[in-house]
């Protein structure tokens, strides 16, 4: 009987694959990796590419757009990114978020207006109370 290693491929949005394999091939940042059972503990970043899982009977392919690979003697965990990532891309997204916020608040005061916020909340609470009182009165 051949030795097997447990493989978990998860992304933030879903669990993609979980099962046993005889061999796993992954696109490590420093080069392609082949992981057999009882591999030494290893952590590496992954490049976009294909992860191949050889279960002995068949070979499964998963495309990932990067992520992190963790290897322990009997478990391989792939923490896959779902989005295509690059530093400048992240930066662009951050700027976009910032711009949105600025647009939304173009002409607002800079001090936190507790009094106003609390007044608003109190008003909402009073409305709710009034509604429930009206309902009881009927």
């Amino acid at each position, binding site marked *: 009987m051949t030795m097997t290693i447990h493989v*978990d491929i*998860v*992304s*933030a*949005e*879903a*669990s993609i694959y979980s099962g046993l394999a005889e061999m796993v091939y992954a696109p*490590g*940042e*420093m080069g392609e990796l082949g992981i057999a059972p009882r591999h*030494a*503990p*290893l*952590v*590496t*970043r992954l490049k976009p590419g294909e992860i191949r899982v050889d279960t002995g009977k068949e070979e499964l392919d998963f495309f990932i757009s990067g992520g*992190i690979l*963790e290897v322990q003697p009997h478990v391989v*965990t792939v*923490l896959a*990114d*779902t*989005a295509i*990532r690059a530093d400048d891309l*992240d*930066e*662009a*997204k*951050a*700027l*976009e*978020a*910032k711009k*949105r*916020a*600025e647009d*939304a*608040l173009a002409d*607002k*005061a*800079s*001090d*936190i*207006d*507790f009094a*106003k*916020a*609390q007044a*608003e*909340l109190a008003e*909402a609470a009073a409305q*709710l109370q009034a509604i429930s009182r009206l*309902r009881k009165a*009927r």
Partner: protein
Amino acid sequence: MAVGKEIKTKIASVQSTQKITRAMEMVAASKMRKTQERVMAARPYAKKMSQVIRHLAQASSEYKHAYLSERDVKRVGVILISSDRGLCGGLNSNLFRKFVGQLKEWTDAGTEVAMASIGSKGEGFLGRLGGEVLGSVTHLGETPSIEDLIGVVKTMLTEYDEGKIDRFYIAHNDYVNTMTQSPEVVQLLPVYTAELEEELTHHWDYIYEPDAKDVLDQLLIRYIESLVYQGVLENNACEQAARMVAMKSASDNAGELIDELQLIYNKARQASITQELSEIVAGAAAV
């Protein structure tokens, strides 16, 4: 019959409102199940990640990452996660109340606050509140993807990297069950080291490629993103649950209202019949 025509139309209008609220209730119920499944699906990732971080934090003790160490708190960052749409009962107001309370605590202690929002209700609220807003994202829909959140999280992480904020929180609704959603303000950075320094049974170290620092950097960023993503998913599940409950009570109230109006209508009808009868009787007696 002219009697109670207004009441009739009133009943019809309440009935059509009830139809709408009932439909919304059922839609929310089915969406709630889906959002719950999504919360469950996202859990293994964060769990695996915290395991690896725990190992790494222990293994490479000579390298202390900024995300793992406490520093003096002069300014904090917080992302307010809210729903995009209303009609979900007191869900958002409860969260905002909790958020304002926390905000007051911070400012009273002399800590500055930088804010960002996810969801249009929160964006509107922060706009009315004033203060410093660093980023915002809205309309994530029912299937939010982590890609949409990168921007907002990145602005906060950059602030943290540059030492402009010393702690990073998210405020969101925590899904307890269908009837209960509790607003929470949770600290993400620095990562709770108490949680991480749990004793391992045996000591070993990884081989790092390219090196521990790079891997830990990326891992921690992904970890924070996944926690924010979880917060968004939880908040989504809460939104659907709260909407379902709110719409159910609206339908029930509409039902009561219809019953009452029906009673008034019947009484008016009877009164008019009685009056007509007595007029006829009086007329016959006179002849």
